[in-house]
């Protein structure tokens, strides 16, 4: 296991390095934005020039470029994100928004991969059947669909036409009180809270699952098909093992590998999808705040969210790589 430990350490170092580079890119984006962070102060005639000069020096805005970059990176890596233009500390916004996004997208990724692997495995085994063709076509269709459009259609059907779910928001006690009498009448109770949060997460989560499981299904299927052509499957069959055992123990085990690596690439896209879906469903998570901060030119908030998203994606990558190592016997040895 020592080699696995070394592998993890190497990946961690690589991840940190990547995060460092990403932070530089965020800083450059931050510097490239038009105007200055002091514009708000300068526009206010009641604020004297001295105050602005003081603020500028206090925030290091007069420092040389490299010093500014150094400070920015240090602050980012120590999670000192400063204040949003609304005066709220950025860190508290992130503390609020991050768990919501993780809940939504963590849940969606888990469901999506379970569904994708099961269905992909199944249709690979049923090669050539009508079921396979149907599933493939449906998956291809969803795979090429814009997530926000599915979101809108789900909203149209399940929130607008048949009001089963709320039209938006992360939580809304009044909606639950009105539509789910079985959730009780005490908004502070744990059960009520659970129903509230869960019912608001259903539609965005369903959208994400619909969009992304298509890719997993297709990938799992092709991967299964390839593995099934390998010699060791033939050997296993020749040994007289049952189809089920061959499929689950021998074929599927090996077919997981590319699917797990695909999480690496998928994570980035899932986060991208998060932004749009949170916007459509007014789900106040990271994506929603990122978009708001870009629109309101809230530099600190936007930078911090971008950093946190990158951190998440990089961390996800590392976890996926380690999982890969655990799953792949060749790495384990």
């Amino acid at each position: 296991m020592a080699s696995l430990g070394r592998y993890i350490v190497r990946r961690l170092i690589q991840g940190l390095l990547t995060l460092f580079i990403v932070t530089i890119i965020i800083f450059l984006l931050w510097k490239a934005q038009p105007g200055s962070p002091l514009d708000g102060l300068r526009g206010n005639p009641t604020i004297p020039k001295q105050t602005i000069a003081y603020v500028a020096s206090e925030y290091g805005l007069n420092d040389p470029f490299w010093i500014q970059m150094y400070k920015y990176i240090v602050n980012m890596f120590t999670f000192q994100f400063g204040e949003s233009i609304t005066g709220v500390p950025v860190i508290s916004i992130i503390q609020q928004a991050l768990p919501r996004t993780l809940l939504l997208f963590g849940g969606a990724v888990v469901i999506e991969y379970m569904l994708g692997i099961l269905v992909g495995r199944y249709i690979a085994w049923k090669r050539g059947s009508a079921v396979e063709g149907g599933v493939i076509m449906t998956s291809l269709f969803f795979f090429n669909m814009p997530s926000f459009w599915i979101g809108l259609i789900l909203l149209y059907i399940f929130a607008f036409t048949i009001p089963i779910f709320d039209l938006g928001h992360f939580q809304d006690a009044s909606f639950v009180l009105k539509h789910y009498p079985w959730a009780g009448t005490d908004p502070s109770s744990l059960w009520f809270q659970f129903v509230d949060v869960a019912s608001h997460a259903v539609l965005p989560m369903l959208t994400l699952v619909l969009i992304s499981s298509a890719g997993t299904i297709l990938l799992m299927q092709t991967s299964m098909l390839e593995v099934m052509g390998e010699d060791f499957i033939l050997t296993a069959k020749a040994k007289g093992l049952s189809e089920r055992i061959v499929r689950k123990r021998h074929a599927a085990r090996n077919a997981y590998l590319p699917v797990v690596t695909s999480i690496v690439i998928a994570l980035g896209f899932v986060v991208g999808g998060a932004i749009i879906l949170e916007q459509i469903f007014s789900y106040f998570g990271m994506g929603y705040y990122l978009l708001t901060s870009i629109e309101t030119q809230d530099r600190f908030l936007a930078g911090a969210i971008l950093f946190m998203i990158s951190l998440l994606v990089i961390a996800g990558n590392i976890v996926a790589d380690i999982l890969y190592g655990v799953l792949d016997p060749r790495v384990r040895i």
Partner: protein
Amino acid sequence: MSASDSAGRPAPSTGQLVLQRVGQLARKSWSTLRQSRLGMIGFVIVVLFALIAILAPVIAPYPRLYLAPDVDRFQNKAYTLDLPANLTYAEPVLGPTTPLSNAAGAMWELNYNRTAGIIYMNPLEYAVGFNESPFLSSNYTRTIDITQYFKLAPPPGLPMVSLYYVVPSTLLNGSLGPSLLNGGIAFFSGQDFVAADPFSANAFFRDRMNFTPTWTGEDPLAAGDLLIAPAQRSSCFGIICTPVGPYQYFYASNGTETVVYEVQYGNAWASSIDTGSRVFSLNVTLSAPPFVYYNPSGVTSADAYRSGPGQGIFLPLANGTLEVADVTGTVRAFVPLTLDGAPATVVGNIGYTQAQYPLRLYLPLRSATASGMAYLDLNTLTLGTMYTLPGTGWQPLGHTFSRTGSDYFSAWYNATSNDTYFVGATQVNATTASGISYQLVPQFQVHIPGRVLSYFYSFEQNRVFFLGSDHRIFSLMTVYSGSSAVTPDEFPVFPPTGVQSIEYGGSFHGTLYGSLSTQELWGVWTDPVTAQTVAFQLQGSVRTPLPPGSYPSGNTYLWGTDFFGGDILTEWIYGTQIAFLVGLLAAFFSVGIGTLVGVISGYYGKTLDTLLMRTTDVFLVLPFLPIVLVLISIVSPSIWIIILVIAILGWPGIARVIRSQVLSLKERPFVDAARVSGASDLRLVFLHIAPNVLPFSFLYMSLNVGGAIITEAALSFLGFGDPTVTSWGGMLSNLLTFSGALHAWWWLLPPGLGITFLSLGFYLIGRGFDEIINPRLRRR
């Protein structure tokens, strides 16, 4: 291949060879694609979309930025009320109940019969939200027989000449009066002038003239179309202050004798201040009706707010002079009238400015050779010519009117050519030798056949509504449109032939003040013969997004319209162009960059490889969409920038695959053979390695097109798109902006289906290649 057997011909250059290889590749691609059913389906889909994109200008039912006309976008409802029959009615009079800044209230509609002297008062209340008639929301109808109701002795003479509504005022003590049973009336009947409260039957002022007037009028800022509320003021002598006013003025003249009355009316709760007096009388021949102007913003306190440039009595004398007097009756000046230097007389109603500045009146003049419009500056009492019309056959219609003083609008009728000429203009600052002055620039001019019977200006809509001689209502845009030819839009409400006049009703909230929603505005007419009065919406209720179908303008919108009235099918067809543009270009560039990086990295190896691959790693983990969003928000959104950004961030995956291919190709014997025979690096890369990795580039390109289309749609959807182009994502973005339109499935479905199918088409082509040429590639 072909290079080896061409002994006699000059050896083809590297460039020619590359072209040749690409041609071979294309032919080979086509033959492989034909083997894949999925690939062919994709190909057919893409070709269909490509045809739509190319033929867009031909097959689109409307021009790209076409918007449905107002007739289709709005539903103009008209509500009818039957008045007592067998009486002939004059044009209706309208007035609000409460002072103007208070939104709670109603409008009174006054219809009267001249010969019998009977007034019918009906409240109009805003009821659009409830979709019911504004006439039926209340039953406070008043019927007033003027010879009996006010118990005046002797009773007022008949026939009734004219009727005016006296708007209630804001008093110094804050009293606004009731929201419904509020407001006064003033009327000329026979030789009598009477000002009265119709609710308490109190006639608080009465005067008998020694003539029967032919011209009567009121100061227009107290009229039904006013926007400035009459208000009481405080007049101080030393430390003693007393409330004065609010004043409203009425004039009557028979052409040789003229009188002006001052009426002071508060509201229905403050009858103690109601009074009136005759302030002016004169026996001189006039060439046109006199005019009284009282703009509360332009008066000064010197004489209890009866002096200053914002007020005056204006008498167009037949000798070509304008006599100007204060509303107290004191003569201020005699202004000689000239049009372009030639002596002239006033030939019609004097027009006015509603806003405080500039205080100007508009005089329709006629000289010996021309007609035209001049303005009178009330501060300096000097005259300026605005424009002239050739000949003397022009007769002004109605009041020239300016809402803000920077634009004005007037109508002239020419009996010889039997047409009506509308002139609208805006005022711009112009630098002259004497400094900054104002210049009126004609904005639009339009000739309408026949004599326009009646017109009014709706400032809120920038439109003039007129009743043509053929008894159809039209509306004219008065906003500068870049061309001087304006086409009147026919209004989908049709008055019967007996109607001679349409009146502006404003908002039935009872207020005419502030920026009103154009949906709240009404017009009113009364048919004197059938005794029906009709209130009609000027703009109407918004009906967009329109579901698919045919509409009053005769247009058919096969896929319906969006919120602004844009045809969905047209937008969708043009959206295909943008999808192709973005998809193909972005995919082409990202694959180009990816291939280049992959080939260089794989071929040269060593430090360059490490550097490029580490960069690729960083790009691979970058959260794609968030970064694109930030990038787009920095530069101004344009479709080219979007393509560039998508291309720049989309290449790393491809670079990886191409590199691995190059690594294996590099070791193949045919590359070694070429190298040994002395091929340069460039020749090796372009002639031997590139053609062999191009299928992969091609495959990735077709897989990437869909992604690029979806990304552009997502960017547009989030509001970061190029606002000047019609894209599918932009269509959906508008849908979400007007989230009330979520029910518009005809708007929701087409863009999404377009994105899905086009991107599916490209994806299927890619998958087709994937299945046939390179089964190994499946292990991505």
